[in-house]
């Protein structure tokens, strides 16, 4: 009891994509948070931050989902999200939803002030400067838009990655240019989205890296899906795609995103 009392209580907002597609990212986040001395909680009733509704103009459903999330995460010292996009939603967009409801605006601001994207939380709030993991490979890093521009995630993942034994980090040209995922955008405008991710794939291949990392599963699935299709159809390079948390936590037993079970890892 005395020991846990000194540990910050962190509510992990798992995000719908990690929950559904890649739970291994969630467990990597839990490990990193525990390594950083946090007590991790995962409120069971959490679902989605509401971004699909928000960006489709459906304000009523957005507010409804925001209220649920705000209430669920009220008791924690921090709320941590393994995604700059969903983190940005909680931190930068929730308070603006309740301009005409002062009570909820206050609660939303209280949540926003305690909400962090995972890697920036580890680095900036918990002072983590290195990890004790190992990854053999040449890695390049894509800056996902919301994390970069809404939350200032830029140096933190690079700083922590540079401490991973065996890992060589090479910069991605145009790393700050959108990959074309954009949530519902990739469904509404698939041709433009494909053009953007194709440009991203060219840049990734130009680095000669065997692994591409980012902090958002949406972007990662988009890039992985394109790289793999190019590999199948045009003999493109075999590039592993992972969430940055998996590499930092040293949890790379699961195959990379979109890769077959037999390859890589265990």
């Amino acid at each position, binding site marked *: 009891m005395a020991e846990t009392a000194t540990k910050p209580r962190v509510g992990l907002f798992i995000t719908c994509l990690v929950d559904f597609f890649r739970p291994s990212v969630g*467990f990597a986040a839990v490990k990193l948070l525990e390594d950083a001395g946090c007590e991790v909680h995962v409120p069971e009733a959490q679902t989605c931050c509401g971004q699909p509704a928000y960006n489709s103009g459906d304000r009523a459903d957005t507010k409804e989902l925001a209220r649920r999330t705000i209430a669920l995460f009220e008791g924690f010292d921090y709320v941590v999200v393994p995604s700059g996009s969903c983190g940005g939603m909680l931190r930068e967009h929730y308070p603006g939803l309740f301009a005409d409801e002062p009570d909820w605006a206050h609660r939303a601001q209280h949540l926003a002030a305690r909400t962090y994207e995972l890697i920036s939380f580890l680095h900036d709030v918990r002072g983590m400067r290195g990890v004790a993991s190992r990854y053999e490979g040449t890695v390049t890093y894509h800056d996902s838009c919301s994390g970069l521009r809404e939350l200032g995630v830029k140096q933190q993942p690079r700083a922590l990655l540079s401490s991973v034994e065996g890992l060589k980090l090479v910069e991605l040209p145009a790393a700050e240019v959108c990959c074309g995922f954009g949530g519902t955008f990739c469904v509404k405008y698939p041709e433009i989205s494909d053009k953007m991710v194709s440009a991203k794939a060219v840049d990734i291949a130009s680095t000669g890296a065997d692994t591409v990392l980012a902090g958002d599963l949406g972007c990662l699935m988009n890039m992985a899906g394109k790289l*793999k299709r190019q590999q199948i159809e045009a003999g493109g390079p075999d590039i592993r795609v992972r969430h940055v948390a998996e590499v930092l936590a040293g949890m790379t037993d699961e195959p990379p995103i979109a890769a077959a079970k037999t390859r890589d890892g265990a």
Partner: protein
Amino acid sequence: MTMQPTSRAFKANAHDALADAKLQRALGFFQFGQAGLAERRRQAVDRLPEFDVLRDRAKAIKDHTLAHLDWYLERFERNCTEAGGHVHWCRNAEEARQVVLDICRKLNARTATKGKSMIGEEIAINDYLAANGVEPIETDLGEYIVQIRHEMPSHIIAPAIHLTQHQVEASFRKTHTQLDPARQLEEPRQLLDEARGILRQKFLDADVGITGANFLIAETGTSVIVTNEGNGDLTQLLPKAHIVLASLEKVVPTLEDASTILRVLARSATGQDMSVYTTFSTGPRRAGDLDGPGEYHVILLDNGRSALLGTEFQDILRCIRCGACMNNCPVYASVGGHAYGWVYPGPMGSVLTPALIGVENAGHLPNASTFCGRCESVCPMKIPLPKMMRHFREQEYERKLSPRTVRAGLAVWAFLARHPVLYHFLAGKAAALLGRLGRRNGSFYGLPLAGGWTATREMPAPQGRTFQAMWRGRQAGKVR
């Protein structure tokens, strides 16, 4: 008649643009390379440590002006009139076109030279003048090129950016039939010299000169244009009358204010510290002046802008037309400016177009954005472009303009997201099914309802169990 927008056909326009190899080659030169405008802007901003402070000051100037727009416009009118100019208040494109034509008719004008003006495009002045016996001649090189090709500008500061050099050469050969067919035209310089030679006589012959305005200065009644070619000066100084086409929000209070905004304008646009020519015009030629127009007219166009004041779209009126948002937009870089279907492309166009012609006529534009936020991050006037695009999506949703399938899908998803037990149950089932089906390959080549994605990309398979289910298992294990 105003150019008929094709913004409703954005998707088809974009499809054609993506398949247009020449356009794609031109766009490839345009954007992300070392010579691209985005990179030149970045370097210019890096060279000026006070850029961000200037940006805040420029934004504050425009916000203040918009809050007192009526007062500054009337002040501009008074000072412009005192200097011998004429100010024409025009509610819409029809009124503006009529005023321009009336001035041309009064002077028996046969030709009108034109400096670059987006308001000219907005009111489709060229077609109107031509239909009424006045030949309009674009004198900005890019505008001249698109004019002889019967096209629209595809970018607000680089109108012919969608063309390759070879296309320009072909158009010159086709149009300038009076010149030697065997002449050399392979070098950009040769193209430039040819256009200059053709335009020189047009400048001298023109009866009326029409320009846009980057600023109107209230305290002096002055209009300001910036150009890199000097064509604006020849356009406005040589003819009998100079007509300035300006929308209401171009006004700033003082010369000092214009100077402040000029310091962010060219840097944001082309990475220059200043444009090559910055020209201030106050009234017509005075006694003793060596040159200058005999008449000076300013068209003050509203065309829907005053209706934006006090709304969530007011901030777009801060726009100074630098083009930085489109230079940094990955969607613009993919499809070019014509796909947007009207006068203003890129992120600022995705807000201004539905604001001026209605979201029902341009709904695709604010939707065709990933909200990557790069436009807002480079905007010298800090215009929250993604936020305003989202406001248009809200308007669409409220007015039930968004597609029924999208609305239905959202409703089902939102219902589930509000019912966590059901949500987690179904997510668990779906993850298990897709995880099993996708285990061997790790991804899907095709999936029902995901055709847009899987046409060109694999859909990664889920790992098979949801995090929530695994976490519950882990917690239960701990307790035991």
